[in-house]
């Protein structure tokens, strides 16, 4: 808005601040809770200031884990989650950018049906095909392995579709100019299309990393060995203790640990993302 009235300024800021508080306050509470001892929550009064158990809680969780609840050390689970998320994100981008390249730039039989087939899977959530997928993965002997965690979710109709849409906006003359300049299809892909797709790749990496990191149902189905547990499953295991009270301080520390990496990825990649947006022009 071009208008600049003090009252409107006050109002917009009020709304924004309220919005931020609504989002931030629960996260703040979780962090505060993770710095207290296990008995501080029994009174029913939730403390609002940090306690003195920060290093104890986090150190215990990262190093030892809560083995009685079936949660291995968080360091291991964080590593698993990171590996899975990166493999999913990189794999999804690599596969979908190549599929989109094939669909847009090559004429082959059944090209259009192939695209529609990919497009239609957009409408099927993972949960719909989860039983057959489990059967396939089990028969291939990929239960309890990284390949089992990653491969079934590595194809992405969304990313293929987005790359296709982007490639369609690249002028055809660009490809023709490259052909005249002596660049074959793969050279054109590497020298022209990949650099032009930088922003899309960065954006998709953020989305796909978080998608991979937040995988819950699938890892829970196919991993039975603690060695392959991911951090999102770990929280669930912490929070469901069979006998006795939940150790909320540890659960909250786990939540903070699980939430941190996606935030870091967004902060780090956003720079690249914005930079790419400013620099690239077709």
């Amino acid at each position: 808005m071009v208008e600049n009235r003090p009252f409107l300024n006050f109002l917009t800021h009020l709304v924004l601040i309220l919005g931020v508080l609504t989002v931030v306050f629960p996260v703040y509470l979780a962090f505060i809770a993770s710095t207290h001892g296990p008995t501080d929550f029994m009174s029913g009064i939730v403390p609002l200031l940090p306690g003195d158990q920060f290093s104890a809680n986090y150190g215990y969780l990262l190093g030892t884990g809560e083995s009685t609840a079936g949660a291995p050390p968080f360091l291991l689970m964080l590593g698993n989650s990171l590996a899975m998320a990166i493999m999913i994100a990189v794999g999804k981008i690599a596969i979908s950018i190549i599929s989109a390249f094939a669909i847009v730039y090559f004429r082959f039989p059944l090209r259009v049906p192939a695209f529609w087939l990919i497009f239609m899977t957009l409408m099927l959530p993972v949960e719909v095909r989860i039983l057959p997928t489990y059967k396939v993965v089990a028969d291939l002997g990929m239960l309890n392995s990284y390949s089992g965690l990653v491969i079934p979710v590595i194809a992405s109709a969304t990313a293929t579709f987005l790359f296709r849409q982007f490639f369609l906006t690249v002028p055809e003359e660009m490809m023709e100019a490259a052909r005249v300049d002596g660049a074959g299809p793969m050279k054109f892909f590497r020298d022209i299309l990949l650099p032009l797709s930088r922003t899309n790749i960065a954006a998709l990496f953020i989305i796909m990393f978080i998608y991979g990191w937040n995988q819950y149902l699938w890892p829970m189905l196919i991993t039975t060995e603690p060695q392959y547990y991911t951090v999102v499953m770990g929280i669930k295991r912490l929070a469901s203790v069979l006998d006795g009270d939940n150790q909320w301080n540890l659960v909250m520390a786990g939540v903070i640990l699980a939430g941190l990496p996606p935030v870091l990825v967004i902060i780090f990649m956003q720079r690249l993302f914005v930079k790419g947006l400013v620099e690239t022009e077709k």
Partner: protein
Amino acid sequence: MASIDVEGVGKVYSGGVRAVTDIKLNIADGEFIVLVGPSGCGKSTLLRMVAGLETISEGEVKIGSRVVNNVEPADRDIAMVFQNYALYPHMTVYNNLAYGLKNRGTPKAEIDARVAEAARMLEITQYLERKPRALSGGQRQRVAMGRAIVRKPAAFLFDEPLSNLDAKLRVSMRGEIKRLQRRLGTTSIYVTHDQLEAMTLADRLVVLNGGQIEQIGAPLEVYHAPASTFVASFIGSPAMNLVKGELHGDKLAIGPAMVALNGFAPTSGAVTVGVRAEDLRIARDDEEALPFRLEYTEELGAQRLIHGTVGDQQITAAVSPEIALSPDMRIAVDAKRLHFFSIDTGKRLPGHVPAEAKLAPVEPVI
């Protein structure tokens, strides 16, 4: 450097749509050929077949003495300048120019030398480290030309390279393209829909219509002796007046009026008569002339275009702005300035050809 021979080339798209029919065109080494025609006439398709960006359905294309029908564009020894420049946006100007050479494995030192030479020729040396987005339209056009020049190809192919520029820049770039082509002596094919651009650039014009060649000739030849009513109406601004007339012996009847032909009648019966606006003049009182009803005028500065009707047919004449006008005038024309076309085929009828059509082109002073 090479000649280009287009032998009976045709293009049929999958689905049976025919874009180009039986084109025969022999281009001499160093010649500047302009393909001109309205949109959809097949001129770009023809150029792209020479470039290798479209497959050739019929006939063959030779560059030098080599048939290139199945040769990749990169191996045809041609360079192309596109309408939207098609510069690589993420590369600097230097890399844009060098990309084609790098792909051919040219040594680094030679790439440097060639890029520097092309940049100097096009006066873009100070922009070599910039990205295309930081350049103006005219500068981008120069970079696109530079990308063609550095390759030192046998032929330049231009696909409407000036259409994205504003009118003033177009005129100066036009001159520059001509100058560069003369200096480098590279065979060139240039596609445009702008007849003025075609006239000013071409050694020889190829006028295309509906995928077929209407006429091939030097600009003056095409202007003064158009081979068909299509060429007559397409080349020249304002377009040649085309009216229906009837030949009676040595007289031409246009509506109720008669014009003496002084022996220039090519045939008899109904014909289409063509006359350039500048060949019409306001008649003296004592001569045979056509009654002209003035409708409106357009001022061009040096000339004034007067639009009106003779009988029920539209006529435009170009006259000096100093001549006084009245709503009802008479206009006259010399019989030898008339063009006669068949009323059925639109083809020029054999007969008198104006002397201007045979004027030799001015050899450039370099």
